C-alpha cells in the first residue's frame, strides 16, 4: 500500500505519523477526517462535492493516501502543496479523469450532490464536472467558434442559437472583444492566455456545475494570469470551483478555502485566510512560509 521510497511511514490513512524530516514539528493530524477536525472556525456552507477516504494509485505507487475533504458549493477551493503531493491526481479523480490513464486506480468515495461518482457514467459525470487543464488545449483543427461549441456537439445537443451561445461564453471569459472579428480563425492563432480563456469558455458552454482547474495559469504570463484570476472570481457566483495551484499568492487571491496536500495526504483544509494567517498545522506554516517544498 505504501511506497517504499516515501518518508511517510506506512500505515493508517489519516493520522499518519510524520516522517523523518527533523525540522518538521511532528503533530499527527486528528483521526478520521484528517485535518478537518482541526478547523479553527466551522465550515458551514453546503458541500457540492466531497471526497471520503479517497485513495489513488498509478500501478503499485500510491499517490493519494486517503483524502477526505468537502468542496463547498459556489466557492473556490484551492489545492496547494509541493510537486508530487497528489494535488493534480486529486482533482483528476473528481471527474474520473484519473482512471483514463492505464494503470491508474482509485478507491474510496467521491460524492457529487450526495451521489457517489464512481457509480455514475463517467461521460455524464464529466458533463457536470468540467475541467480546465494545465496547458491550454484548444482543439487545433477547429475554429474558435467550433471550440466553444465542441462540448455541446460532442454530447449531441442541438443548439438553438449557437452564435448567441458562443458570444455569451466568450464574453464570460472576456475574450469576445478580442476575437469577435475572427471567430472562424483557428484556436491556435490565439496567444497562450487567450487559448486558456477559450478552453474555459469551452467548459462554460457545457454549463457544468463544478469546474476543476489544474494549474490553469502555469503556462501563462502575469497579465494573462491576472485575467484568468479575475475570471475565477466572476465564475464562483455560479460555479463550484476547485483549482490546483503551485502559486500560493494565487491561492490567497482567488480561493475561499485552501487545502494543503503533502505526500498524498491532506494536512489541512480551512478558510484561506486562516490557512495563510494562522494555520493549525506546523507543516502548513512551513510550506506557506517557504521553509520547504
Amino acid at each position: 500500500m505504501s511506497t517504499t521510497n516515501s518518508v511517510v511511514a506506512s500505515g493508517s490513512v489519516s493520522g499518519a505519523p510524520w516522517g523523518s524530516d527533523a525540522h518538521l514539528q511532528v503533530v499527527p493530524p486528528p483521526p478520521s477526517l484528517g485535518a478537518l477536525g482541526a478547523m479553527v472556525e466551522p465550515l458551514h456552507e453546503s458541500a457540492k462535492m466531497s471526497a471520503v477516504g479517497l485513495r489513488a494509485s498509478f500501478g503499485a505507487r500510491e499517490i493519494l493516501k486517503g483524502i477526505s475533504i468537502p468542496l463547498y458549493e459556489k466557492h473556490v477551493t484551492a489545492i496547494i502543496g509541493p510537486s508530487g503531493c497528489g494535488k493534480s491526481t486529486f482533482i483528476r479523480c473528481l471527474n474520473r479523469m484519473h482512471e483514463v490513464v492505464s494503470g491508474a486506480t482509485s478507491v474510496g468515495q467521491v460524492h457529487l450532490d450526495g451521489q457517489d461518482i464512481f457509480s455514475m457514467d463517467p461521460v455524464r459525470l464529466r458533463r457536470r464536472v468540467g475541467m480546465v487543464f494545465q496547458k491550454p488545449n484548444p482543439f487545433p483543427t477547429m475554429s474558435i467558434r467550433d471550440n466553444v461549441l465542441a462540448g455541446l456537439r460532442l454530447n449531441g445537443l442541438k443548439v438553438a442559437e449557437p452564435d448567441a451561445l458562443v458570444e455569451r461564453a466568450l464574453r464570460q471569459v472576456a475574450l469576445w472583444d478580442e476575437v469577435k472579428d475572427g471567430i472562424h480563425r483557428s484556436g491556435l492563432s490565439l496567444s497562450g492566455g487567450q487559448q486558456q480563456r477559450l478552453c474555459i469558455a469551452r467548459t462554460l458552454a457545457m454549463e457544468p456545475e463544478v469546474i476543476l482547474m489544474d494549474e490553469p495559469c502555469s503556462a501563462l504570463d502575469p497579465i494573462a494570469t491576472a485575467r484568468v484570476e479575475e475570471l475565477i472570481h466572476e465564475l464562483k457566483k455560479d460555479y463550484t470551483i476547485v483549482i490546483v495551484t503551485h502559486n500560493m499568492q494565487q491561492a490567497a487571491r482567488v480561493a475561499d478555502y485552501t487545502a494543503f496536500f503533502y505526500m498524498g495526504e491532506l494536512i489541512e483544509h480551512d478558510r484561506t485566510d486562516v490557512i495563510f494567517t494562522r494555520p493549525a498545522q506546523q507543516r502548513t506554516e512551513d510550506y506557506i512560509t517557504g521553509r520547504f517544498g
Partner: protein
Amino acid sequence: MRQSIWPTPERPPLVPGRFRGDTHRGDRVFSWITAASASIVILTVLAMTGQMLASSWLSLETFHWSFITSLEWNPVTEQFGALPFIFGTIVSSTVALALAVPVSFGVALFLSELAPEWLRNPFGFLVELLAAVPSVVYGLWGIFALAPLMRETVEPALRASLGFLPLFSGPNQGYGMLTASVVLAIMITPTIASVSREVLRAVPRAYREAALGLGATQWEAIRTGVFPVARSGLVGAVVLGLGRALGETMAVTMLIGNRADISASLFAPGYTMASVIANEFTEATEDLYLSALAEIGLLLFIITVLLNIFARFLVWRVGRQGGA
C-alpha cells in the same frame, strides 16, 4: 576566483587553436558532410531519371503518346502499348488500399488507444514483423493458400451475392486482379498500421483529455481529439502503403495471372507495370522491346511521383482547411 575558460582579446586561449575558428571549422566540416549526404539523394534521383529517359528514348520516339493509350503489347510485331499495365497497377493498388486502410486504422487504433497495456508492445512488434516478411514468401503463401481459397470460396460467394456487378462476374481461376489485390492489402497493412500507430501515439494526451473532459465517450474523444490532429500523419501512412503497393513486384507477379488485358472483372487476370518489367526483361533482345520496358519503368516512376505530389497536396489542403 575562477578563471573563465573563454579567451578574450587580452588573454589568449588556454589551449592554442582550440577556440574560435577551430570549433567553427568543425561545424563547417560537419555541415559539408551532411550537405553532401543530402545531395547524394538528389543526384540519385536525377541520374535515375536521366538514365531512364535515355534508355526509353527509342520507344518514346517510336510510339509517342500511343504508348500509354494502346492496348496492344506484342513483342513479335514490335507493337508496344502500356495501357494494360498502367491499368493493372492502378487497379490492384487501389483495391488493395480500399481493403487495407480500414483494417490498418483499426489495428492502429486498437494498439494505440484500446488494447490493454501489456498487449500493446508484443502486438505492435508482431505487426511490424509482418512488414518484414519478404514478398516472395507472401507470393508462395498466395499460390498455396490464398489462390485456392479465392477460387473455391471467396470468389464464388462474391459472384453469388454481387454477381450483377461487372466487377464480380466472369470466370474465376483464383489467379487475377482480386487475388493479387488481397495479397497486396495484406502486405501493406502492417506498413500503414505501424506508421498510423506511431502517428496516433504522438498525438498529445491533452487533446484526448480535452474531449473526455467535455463529456466525450472514448470513440468521440478519438474522433474529436485524436483523428483531426493525426490527419496529415495518417494520410502519410496511407501514401507509404500506396507506394509499396505500386512498386510491389514479386508477390503480385506470382498471383495476378500476367495477362496484358483490361477487364471490368476483378476475377480476370491482369498485369502490372512492375510485373512485366520483371517477367520480360531477360527475354527482351530487341532494342525497341528493351526500350519499351524501360519506358514502363519511367512511367511507373512518374506515376509514383504524381501520386506522392497529389497526396502531399491533400495533406496541405486538409491542414489548411483545419486551420481556417
